[in-house]
């Protein structure tokens, strides 16, 4: 197992720069999840760590040793591909043992390593099958098995669960979490799935347009997003944003509603700000409380209810567990509690309380 240091790493394809000065220190045994919208460079970063893509600038270190110029085979890293990439002409056992064979491991050792990985993943009855005779979930397990038969310095996962159905995904997610608990292997995991990111990560790295936006524990990104991008990206349904003006002690929304803030912010009076509130933090008010919003759509999810509203002419979402919302009339009243309000300045960065 190993630490991975990414220092000022850049990547450009011709004139197009897709990664800008990525700085990331991953500790030995840590589980780091990369999230971000499609095309933000997650796969590229992962492939650079694996050695499949060259590094345009900066330095990549594994266990303190510079690896920029190292061939993938010499990096001793395992990767689970978005596409699984199983060898179609080898059976499951052959797929799993290939890396050990290349390392000239003794036959008995290979057999025992494959057997133990197979039993961990429930693949024992499938060892003689070719990939084409496996279901998607089984292929996914084989891809995982191929990574864990050897003890690599780090595991890289590129959306390994993205093609599985919800149930299998849930099961594999728990499997991966358990496996990480057992192996304590340094892991970097790319996903689009909020829940995977929140549940698996020791730390989440949120990326956008080839730039790291925020690095932190899952709850830190949820509770204190560093900017509007992270605030909108983490959490589902996404955070609501409203334009407002800051003044000492509170913010004034467009319709004149004043919300007092628990602490003054490091902002000038009259500064334009964006306030954000998560749908699950909006309070459905009774008579006389909060603002009036029109109801556009009611979506019961089973667990709760998502209300699509229009507030000051803007789309606004509320998530509630209260089933009474199912029979919401043409308008509802919503209120925000100040401790759940996020305030972002004109540049979209989070405003901190003035000391």
């Amino acid at each position: 197992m190993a630490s991975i240091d990414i220092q000022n790493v850049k990547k450009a394809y011709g004139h197009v720069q897709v990664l800008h000065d990525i700085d990331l220190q991953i500790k030995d045994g840590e589980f780091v999840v990369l999230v971000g919208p499609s095309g933000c460079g997650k796969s590229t970063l992962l492939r650079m760590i694996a050695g499949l893509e060259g590094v345009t600038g900066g330095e990549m270190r594994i266990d303190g040793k510079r690896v920029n110029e190292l061939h993938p085979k010499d990096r001793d890293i395992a990767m689970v591909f978005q596409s699984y990439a199983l060898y179609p002409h080898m059976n499951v056992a052959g797929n799993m043992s290939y890396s050990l064979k290349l390392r000239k491991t003794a036959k008995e050792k290979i057999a025992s390593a494959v057997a133990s990985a197979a039993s961990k993943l429930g693949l024992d009855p499938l060892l003689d099958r070719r990939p084409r005779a496996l279901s998607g979930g089984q292929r996914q397990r084989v891809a995982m098995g191929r990574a864990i038969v050897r003890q690599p310095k780090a595991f890289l996962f590129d959306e390994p669960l993205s093609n599985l159905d919800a149930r299998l995904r849930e099961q594999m997610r728990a499997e991966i979490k358990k496996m990480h608990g057992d192996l304590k292997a340094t892991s970097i995991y790319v996903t689009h799935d909020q829940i995977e990111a929140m549940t698996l990560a020791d730390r989440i790295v949120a990326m956008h347009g080839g730039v790291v936006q925020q690095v932190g524990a899952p709850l830190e990104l949820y509770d204190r997003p560093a900017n509007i991008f992270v605030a909108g990206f983490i959490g589902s349904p996404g955070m609501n944003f409203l334009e407002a003006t800051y003044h000492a002690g509170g913010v004034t929304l467009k319709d004149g509603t004043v919300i007092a803030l628990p602490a003054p912010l490091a902002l000038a009076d009259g500064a334009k700000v964006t306030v954000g509130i998560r749908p699950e933090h909006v309070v459905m008010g009774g008579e006389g409380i909060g603002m009036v919003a029109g109801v556009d759509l009611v979506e019961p999810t089973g667990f709760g209810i998502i209300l699509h509203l229009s507030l000051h002419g803007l789309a606004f979402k509320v998530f509630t567990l209260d089933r009474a919302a199912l029979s919401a009339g043409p308008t509802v009243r919503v209120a925000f509690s100040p401790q759940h309000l996020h305030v972002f300045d004109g540049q979209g960065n989070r405003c901190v309380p003035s000391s």
Partner: protein
Amino acid sequence: MKTSLLPTIAHRLALLGYIVFALFPLFWLLKVSVTPNDLLYSEGVRMWPSRTTWEHYSFVLQHSAFPTFFKNSLIVSGSTAIIVTICASLSGYALSRFNFRAKYWIVGLMLLTQMFPLVMLVAPIFKILTPLGLTNSLTGLIVVYTAFNVPFATFLMQSFFDGIPKDLEEAAMIDGATKFTAFREIILPLTLPGIAATLGFVFTAAWSELLFALMLINGNNAATFPVGLLTFVSKFSVDFGQMMAAGVLALIPAALFFLLIQRYLVQGLTAGAVKG
């Protein structure tokens, strides 16, 4: 089921019609090869002669130079097919997987070689090969055939390599393989259908090539089978029976060859490699 019966029958009939159309010349070849000479012109157009004979076959095998032609053709076509396929696999892989500056020009040049009618090139090639002592030799033919088949075979192989996901060799490299090991152990086995197709294509092209064989070879010792067939045409007559018998015999290796490689020609070898 009843509704789909008519289209099925129509479909089968269309296929049958096509097969009959395609195979009829072969059937005629076979028919003439077993027709005794005295019946060839006397019976009119008949689907099958009233009397059959193996005499053309025994003559061709025992009293003509056909076995030599046959052996020569086998050597030339087999060597050409193998050499071309090896070259085309390597160059096709390079074109499919690597980006290099000269790529554009190499592809352009290879296309250029395919543009000229071969007849134009016979004289210069003869001029080049004569001082090298490669005229009238099987080696010379192999060299020429290889040169002319490599470009097309390269494009053919490239398209097969393009069909194999790049993830597979990347996975192999991460598993600890060098680029060449990944090529040999992962990519090449998956390209067997492509290799078989290329082998078959080049083999048949070389097997039936007449122009260069005719121009570069004289005398029976180094003649290949298509040239040999012409020996059955004399100034005054064409011995159709013997010619057809030789033709049928010449079909045998090509048929055997395809029988051998046909199991690799079936597609679907990469199934299951990647999801989706």
